[in-house]
């Protein structure tokens, strides 16, 4: 088999695929934030007087839920631009 692809190109391509796979982590926070927003809307509907407290609690919970997605984003950015795997060649 004559493969003309260089080691560096192979590692770079696989890093790009890995970055794309890492961004699948975005599904979880999306679902979680949607559930939190839905519950928040329901809570405001039940008790409109407590809108400010509900809003700040909801935003805080959403921001915490977002963290796992941002870890995936950090992994993707590192794979794409810092190229840690190239140094192992």
């Amino acid at each position, binding site marked *: 088999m004559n493969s003309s692809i260089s080691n560096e190109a192979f590692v770079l391509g696989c890093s790009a695929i890995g970055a794309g796979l890492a961004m699948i982590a975005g599904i979880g926070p999306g679902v979680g934030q949607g559930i939190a927003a839905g519950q928040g809307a329901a809570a405001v509907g039940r008790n409109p007087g407590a809108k400010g407290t509900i809003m700040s609690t909801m*935003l*805080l919970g959403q*921001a915490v839920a977002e963290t796992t997605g*941002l*870890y995936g984003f950090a992994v993707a*950015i*590192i794979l794409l*631009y810092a190229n840690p795997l190239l140094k192992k060649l």
Partner: protein
Amino acid sequence: MSDIIVLPSHALLGRTVDFSIHYLKEYELFGHKLYITTTHVSIAIVMLIILIFAVCANIAIRKADPYKKPGKFLNLVELLVETLDGITINGMGKTYGYKYRNYIGSLFIFLFVANLSGLLGLRPPTADYAVTFSLAMISFVIIHYAGFKYQKLGHITDLFKPLLLTPINIIGEIATPLSMSLRLFGNILSGTVLMSLVYGLLPKALTYIVPGFLHAYLDVFSGVIQAYVFTMLTMVFTAQNFDVEE
């Protein structure tokens, strides 16, 4: 970690997409190579904006006549101070909230201006992990200062409360500043990356129309929310250490 901070610029489809931190000047300190980067420049501009606002506010407050109605600018300053105090006291309670409003208020103002500085064409300083991590470390020190002040030795013995869970407790304490800083960094960096992709890859004529909506969401909405969340998390973690129930 230093590898994250330096992102090389990439050429895509002939257009350049550039969201990296550039080195402007190199100098040596105690045998280490250090650089003045674009982050330093944008943080200096942000500081300058806040400083000018603070000096104007100070002059307006000194000139204020307590027997007259406050002017427009003074009203704005009063509104700002009252809002920030209200946020702090809501989060931390009346007895301790007043002691921390200085830090919380200045943190929020800095993060607010820094996150919005993308609108001025700067690279936001909070899209550099060094900035967010040092802010998170300041918050970490304040959280544990409050812990030792109000709970004395109980702050350490709390770590061993269920004896089996000691390692998890310790990891949880260390993970607090890490997740706080990564959250802010990731949010602002994702906004910066998306904006530079849009500016770099769209046809030149379209870049005058399309990015407006994206700026509104990625810079203004996301930036303000993240500034609020960072200060809110600092308050929540600090308020955990107060021993008083109201």
